[in-house]
């Protein structure tokens, strides 16, 4: 186990190195740069000013020098400074990451609980009305993209019913209250969760159906155990194992989804920061974002592998 972990961690070094090359190349292949992004018709800049700004930001250096400078900083644990406001990228991300994790964590948890429950219910009622309706609902769920779900929820719950706020993380200017924060969290988290709940439901249903046909389930029934014990202890536990993989794989798409949802709901996390940094061609922030999310996703994959071996004794890494 330990050697497996070490091997995986060592392997992630070249992967991360590859990530740095790709993200640097993409960030610098975008047309225009941070200096050009600041020019507006109302404030045209002289060529001297443009050259001066480029010099300040190091954008006048050859690309490979810029890359080496950046990598050098990263090896010293420093993600560089934002071209727009001069603040440290690590500091900016550190400030915003908790808000994104709150949104993603709640969405993932809700999706998992709803998806697993409905999936199991659906499997237990196979080919009955409940199963068909849930399958149909799941089909609708996976077909609606995050952003549309977000707009739909805003329209229904904020504009029409006026039950929930339309955007933001809390009521601006009020001192923080958890209740207020949760009220703001419901819609964006639901927009992210519903799509994933539908996916979890489909896997949970398939997993449960497979388990129901296993001989140990028959044995349990023959022993005269209570039906609830059979479903929960023998059925559910085994049916959830494949879900762990899906759970781990949901993380990268959640980062993507949170970029869109954070923009629609003005949720001040790293997704919103990422969109702004692309518009501003703030390459240190763009690269910092991609690098940090890549590391989180890799750690999550590793955790998924480990969780698998814990949940299923048949799987072991040696």
């Amino acid at each position, binding site marked *: 186990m330990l050697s497996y972990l070490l091997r995986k961690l060592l392997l992630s070094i070249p992967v991360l190195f590859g990530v740095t090359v790709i993200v640097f190349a993409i960030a610098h292949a975008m047309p*225009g*740069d941070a200096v*050009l992004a600041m020019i507006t018709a109302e404030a045209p800049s002289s060529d001297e000013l443009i050259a001066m700004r480029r010099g300040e930001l190091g954008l006048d250096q050859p690309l490979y020098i810029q890359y080496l400078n950046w990598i050098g900083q990263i090896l010293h644990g420093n993600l560089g400074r934002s071209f727009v406001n001069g603040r440290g990228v690590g500091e900016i991300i550190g400030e915003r990451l908790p808000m994104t994790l709150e949104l993603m964590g709640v969405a993932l948890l809700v999706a998992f609980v709803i998806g697993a429950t409905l999936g199991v219910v659906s499997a237990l009622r196979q080919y009955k009305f409940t199963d068909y309706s849930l399958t149909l609902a799941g089909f609708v769920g996976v077909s609606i993209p995050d952003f549309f779900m977000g707009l739909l929820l*805003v329209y229904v719950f904020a504009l029409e019913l006026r039950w929930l706020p339309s955007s*933001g993380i809390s009521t601006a200017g009020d001192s923080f209250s958890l*209740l207020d924060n949760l*009220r703001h969290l419901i819609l964006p988290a639901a927009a992210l969760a519903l799509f994933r709940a539908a996916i979890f439901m489909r896997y949970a249903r398939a997993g449960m159906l497979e388990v129901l046909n296993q001989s140990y389930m028959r044995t349990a029934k023959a022993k005269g155990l209570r039906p609830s014990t059979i479903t929960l202890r023998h059925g559910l536990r085994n049916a959830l194992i494949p879900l762990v993989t899906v759970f781990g794989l949901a993380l990268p798409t959640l980062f993507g989804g949170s970029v869109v949802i954070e923009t629609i709901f003005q949720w*001040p996390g790293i997704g919103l920061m990422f969109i702004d940094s692309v518009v501003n061609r703030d390459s240190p922030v763009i690269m910092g974002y991609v690098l940090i999310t890549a590391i989180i996703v890799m750690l999550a994959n590793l955790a998924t592998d480990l969780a698998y071996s814990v949940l299923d004794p048949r799987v072991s890494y040696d």
Partner: protein
Amino acid sequence: MRRLLMSLVPALALMFAVVAAKAEGGGTFRSAMRTGCIEMGTLHTTCGHRLDETVLQGLVHIKWTGDGVQPMLAESWKTPDGGKTYVFNLRHGVKWHDGQPFTAKDVVFSLNLYANPKVGSPWSQKLSAVAGYKALQDGSASALAGVKALDDTTVQIELDSAKPLWVELQLIAISIFPEHILGKVAPGDIKGNAFWVNRVGTGPFIWKKYESDQYVEVDRNPDYFLGAPKLDRIIYQIYKDVPPIIAALETQEVDAMSYEGGGVPISELARLQKLDYLTVLPKFSAGLPTYLQFNLENKRFADVRVRQAMLYAIDRKAIIETVKQGAGELLNTLFPQDWARAKDLEQYDYNPDKAKQLLADAGWDAGQPVDFIYYYSDQMNVDTVTAIQSYLAAVGVNIQPRLLDPAAINQVYADGSFQMGFFANGVGLDPSLGSPLVVCGAKPLAMGYCNPKVDELFNKGLESNDRAVRAASYQEASRILNQDLPKAWLWNEVRPLAFNNRIVGLAQHFKEQPLVIFNHPVYNEVEKWEVAK
């Protein structure tokens, strides 16, 4: 489990209930502001000018009625020599929000800070007429020779030559900073300084708190020199996109929208007009001449007949009526101001046959497509570009539209590959603001157009502050621009705006404002606004 559920029910009920029950009570005005308005930092505040209306201030601000300036930190001023030297008498007894006295030294410091090349402010060119500006730029002087404190409350500013409209057009963009704070910062470090997220000013509201991508809160300044504000606080709520602003306006989470970013989308207008708590101004002029931009250095567009043909080919009236649902006023020259336009302009009425004829005469090659760029990404503008594309295709001009963001557009301008595009620029404050679009060598927007007569008229237009005298120059320029068509003038943009009636004074002042005044602090008597009882 059951107990847990029972306890959840009231919590959930409460969660849904607070939204309706919540009343402001104390007088909070919530105003939407777009992302980036405060973080741009380099004394170049663009849309962040809202904070220069309430926290920092200038010597003078433009009045909301658009017809003059309001004395702010300067109580009065005079120019003994017709606009070459200005002497400003500052208000006595004004204090910075941290209690330090405001003096003439702060003014001298601020003007020098804007002009300092090490700060690199794009706004420094507002001071380019000040004596000694060039010497400061090339390093042969360390301060603006033309700016002097005569005593604690008197400042003299000397220009290179007489500019009778200098205060009205240039000085209104300059905010005054506290020397006792920013004077300690090296000019090169001004941009990233913490001051920009914790400003100390002299205005009616005191900076309280900034949460990145969420809001700026400013609280009432009871010692304000024009009288203590009635509102307790203003919260500038930050939004990246326009749709959430419109939603928040509808749910009364904000009282005022931003006018950057296109105003109320045409598709939402009817819905908002039905809400009795909003005042909707459906035809607010944006002072934005909208036009087809040509690269005149490219031979294909050098022939004026080609540019005329494009204008004849497009049924602008139909586009305004259908796609834009009335949100535009036909315009055949650069100036949105009625007084600056000649009455006898060529109208370029829709005439596709004439367009075809002109293109044939000019030897237009219909087989070669035209790269066409634009950046307004809202549905109405995307539809407008599609309509223009089909009108032009009908006469044999095959444009290929590309939606680009500002950085990419500036790249296209910089590398000279630009061919054609759909753009607009704010000229509402004064016709002279149109000069960067058409005077010889103006980069990047003149695009190779150069007519010395136009340059001369633009210079002449600034020689007097009498509107009747100025009108003659601009009207003649409007005629030349109408004939030369350096750009194919389409219409003046109209931007629907909406405001909540809860704030007394807000909609009232916008009703009296003739058009959007972009990027400048506007004096609108904010200290007298209040929450309706």
